[in-house]
């Protein structure tokens, strides 16, 4: 039996409100399963459980109380075999261990299953069109659209949910799924206030933006106060990489095409795995390197502000997988729905401001990380090829790194590796 506690959600967040449970006592939970949602300055965050077991008791009810990181939320009877998989870093309790969840190829990953759950789609009844017959995001969305056709009767499950008429109306308005909710009342009836607490993310964007601005202020002030930054920059010839990508994309339907930014992300993840002193966290006792590369990606939100959630094990993902992860992450970030592990455990972050037209970015490291990589836009410049001038697409890459951990020499090795990897895009 273990206590499932509110995990750390990043260096600048030490409390959160419990918004909803996605499990009940008696439910079986799997490694990596999203079991609750909390609200923080950075929006609604989905919290994963890193054990296989059975939910014994829910200790907290959803509500407006701010809970500190480490607060026990539930008791879980853990299956013995899985205890070895417990996170090894006590400072970052939600960080997933190095082992990725094992699953058969026909199973769909937790994000897809969670999407199905939140849309009220039964995964067993969806015909999968993905690799090995796995169910894809599109399959789930299609099934959800079908069942939501106007004029159709409610599914039996939906009828079973006890909710007040007002709550039902508000849930429809806000697009909240009643089935994924827990009632605050003892008799289990879902009332309007419950729906409101779940749907709050959709209602007050100004407040969310203001809260996020505060979180960014805290984090960036700490960075500038504590981290002795050094900066290095290099110009990378993108001719080979972009020509190769253009060729690859020309064979693919538009839904499968890969953005140039994905090449930059993959090359960064690979390069940092070669120069591990840039990958990890600065904690009280000093630098703690990380073997896996959980690549943070800075995503700006249309209402203002930004988040930098992680793509886990980015160095091991194929380009198409990385593209899919990036798309998923951007979509959920903009909907203010990220997961606890994504928020807490980037080991290095990339900002790609090229899309906004700047030539060079000078990143500010996000504590407790110790490095950040910036890319400008791809521009055409004159480069020397075999002693003759030619016009090639180039990108200006910048590294900001923490002088407490590394010196310019190490940073230089990283940028050199980055350049080398981008000259062989077919191996990425």
């Amino acid at each position, binding site marked *: 039996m273990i206590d499932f506690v509110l995990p750390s959600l990043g260096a600048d967040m030490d409390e959160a409100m419990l918004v909803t449970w996605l499990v009940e006592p008696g439910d079986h939970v799997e490694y990596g399963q999203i079991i609750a949602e909390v609200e923080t300055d950075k929006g609604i965050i989905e919290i994963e459980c890193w054990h296989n077991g059975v939910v014994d008791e829910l200790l907290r009810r959803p509500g407006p109380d701010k809970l500190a990181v480490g607060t026990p939320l539930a008791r879980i009877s853990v299956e013995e075999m899985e205890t070895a998989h417990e996170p090894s870093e006590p400072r970052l309790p939600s960080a997933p261990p190095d082992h990725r969840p094992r699953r058969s190829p026909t199973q769909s990953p937790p994000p897809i299953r969670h999407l199905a759950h939140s849309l009220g789609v039964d995964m067993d009844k969806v015909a999968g069109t993905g690799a090995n017959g796995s169910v894809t995001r599109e399959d789930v969305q299609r099934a959800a659209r079908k069942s939501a056709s106007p004029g159709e009767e409610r599914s039996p499950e939906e009828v079973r949910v006890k909710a007040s008429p007002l709550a039902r109306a508000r849930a429809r308005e806000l697009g909240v799924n009643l089935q994924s909710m827990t009632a605050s009342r003892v008799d289990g009836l879902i009332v309007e206030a419950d729906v409101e607490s779940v749907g709050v993310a959709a209602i007050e964007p100004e407040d969310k933006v203001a809260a996020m601005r505060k979180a960014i202020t805290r984090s960036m002030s700490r960075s500038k106060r504590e981290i002795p930054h050094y900066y290095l920059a290099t110009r990378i010839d993108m001719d080979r990489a972009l020509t190769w990508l253009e060729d690859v*994309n*020309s064979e693919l339907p538009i839904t499968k095409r890969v953005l140039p930014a994905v090449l930059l992300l993959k090359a960064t993840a690979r390069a940092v795995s070669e120069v591990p002193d840039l990958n990890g966290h600065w904690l009280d006792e000093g630098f703690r390197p990380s073997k896996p590369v959980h690549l943070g990606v800075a995503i700006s939100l249309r209402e203002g502000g930004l988040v930098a959630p992680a793509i886990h094990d980015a160095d091991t993902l194929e380009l198409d997988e990385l593209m899919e992860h990036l798309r998923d992450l951007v979509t959920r970030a903009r909907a203010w729905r990220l997961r606890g592990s994504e928020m807490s455990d980037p080991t290095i972050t990339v900002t790609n401001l090229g*899309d906004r037209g700047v030539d060079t970015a000078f990143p500010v490291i996000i504590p407790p990380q110790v490095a950040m990589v910036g890319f400008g836009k791809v521009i055409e410049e004159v480069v020397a090829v075999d002693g003759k001038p030619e016009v090639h697409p180039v990108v200006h890459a910048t590294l900001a790194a923490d002088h407490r951990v590394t010196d310019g020499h190490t940073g230089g090795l990283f940028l050199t590796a980055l350049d080398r990897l981008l000259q062989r895009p077919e191996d990425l």
Partner: protein
Amino acid sequence: MNREQARDLIFDVLADIAPEVDRDDVDDSLDLTEQLDLDSMDYLTWMIAISEKTGLDIPQRDVSRFLTIDGAIGYLMDKVVIR
């Protein structure tokens, strides 16, 4: 597909990506990504949504026709036949 249908479709899918955009304020002849502050992922998502709505697979070589609203309208008027 006529000009008006094409423009409506283009802005309908854009509303999912950039909900704050007012279609009456957009200059159809200007660079779309810059005017509406779209990044490369938004831009691709927008083209995928157009492709899904119309059933067109937009080949890579035609992507440059989507740099402006006018370009996209012209493309849809050329390619989409409504029965």
